[in-house]
């Protein structure tokens, strides 16, 4: 059965569109650090991971939350997954810029995970996410910390692998 949370084109849709627009402009304006392929990969990682969770724990057997206006898959849902992409790019861009080592990695991941939870809190208030089956925001923090750590690991491995190809 299709769940309808609301039908209006309002805060959640505007938040997704404005977020995408501002972040894409910011990517465009930032000094170029990566090649086209590297930039595409680090933007795609965010979409890849965000979409994995939204197409896994918000559908089928584990339907822990709904996205946007209805439980059906809408175009604005797709755009809200694209929205994750620029964040993963900023995450790795700043990581490279700050040239973090050792324990600073933990602090960096913690700060980004807090930021992600704050953005998620706004998203819940604006009606992008609708928690179900007792899902709580507390679960999101470890998920963010885990996937951000994975992204740093991916970055480190990709450095070694690409240098090995040269």
């Amino acid at each position, binding site marked *: 059965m299709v769940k309808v949370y609301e039908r209006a084109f309002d805060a959640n849709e505007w938040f997704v569109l404005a977020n995408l627009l501002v972040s894409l402009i910011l990517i465009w304006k930032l000094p170029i650090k990566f090649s086209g392929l590297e930039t595409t990969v680090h933007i*795609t990682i965010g979409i890849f991971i965000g979409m994995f969770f939204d197409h896994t724990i918000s559908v089928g057997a584990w339907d822990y939350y709904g996205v946007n206006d209805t439980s059906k898959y809408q175009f604005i849902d797709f755009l809200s997954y694209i929205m994750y992409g620029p964040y993963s790019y900023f995450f790795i861009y700043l990581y490279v810029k700050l040239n973090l080592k050792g324990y600073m990695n933990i602090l960096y991941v913690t700060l980004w995970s807090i930021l992600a939870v704050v953005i998620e809190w706004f998203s819940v208030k604006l009606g992008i996410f609708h928690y179900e089956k007792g899902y709580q925001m507390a679960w999101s923090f470890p998920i963010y910390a885990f996937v951000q750590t994975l992204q740093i690991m991916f970055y480190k491995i990709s450095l070694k692998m690409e240098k090995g190809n040269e």
Partner: protein
Amino acid sequence: MILPAAIVIAFYTLSFFFFIEKKLSFLQNSLVLMLISIAARNYTTILALQLKWIHITEDSILFIVFLIHREIIGPFLVLMFINIYWKTPSGVKRITVFAIFLICLLGMDIFSSTSGVITYLNWNLLKAGIGNTAFLIAGLGLSKVLMYLMQESTNYGKGL
């Protein structure tokens, strides 16, 4: 038995992928894998939630099998196909490679449908075969575009 079988298939798929000689670089393979996975998720979600042509299991254990199929076995089979295809010199051998991987993907579809992971409502193996063919061809096209992209000079990993 179904979950262990899926894990074993995933293990062998990943193992073979790890050892094959790859045409694409690590980043190119990563990008193709992510884009194929994104396409596969949208494909299954649209078929199940929008069109209602298939039904995905509500059973938690079988749902893990579905995820292993969607996230690991399917995308890595496509990625393996792409790398082997571009390493294969002649046309006849390339067609054989294509046929082998199409059969593997269809085999996984048969595995999922016979084990109750996916129930076909308005769907059949012929349509699944067309979908799998589209994934293999899309993967090839994507890899071709990526191979043409020049590796620009970069300061990757050196700090700003």
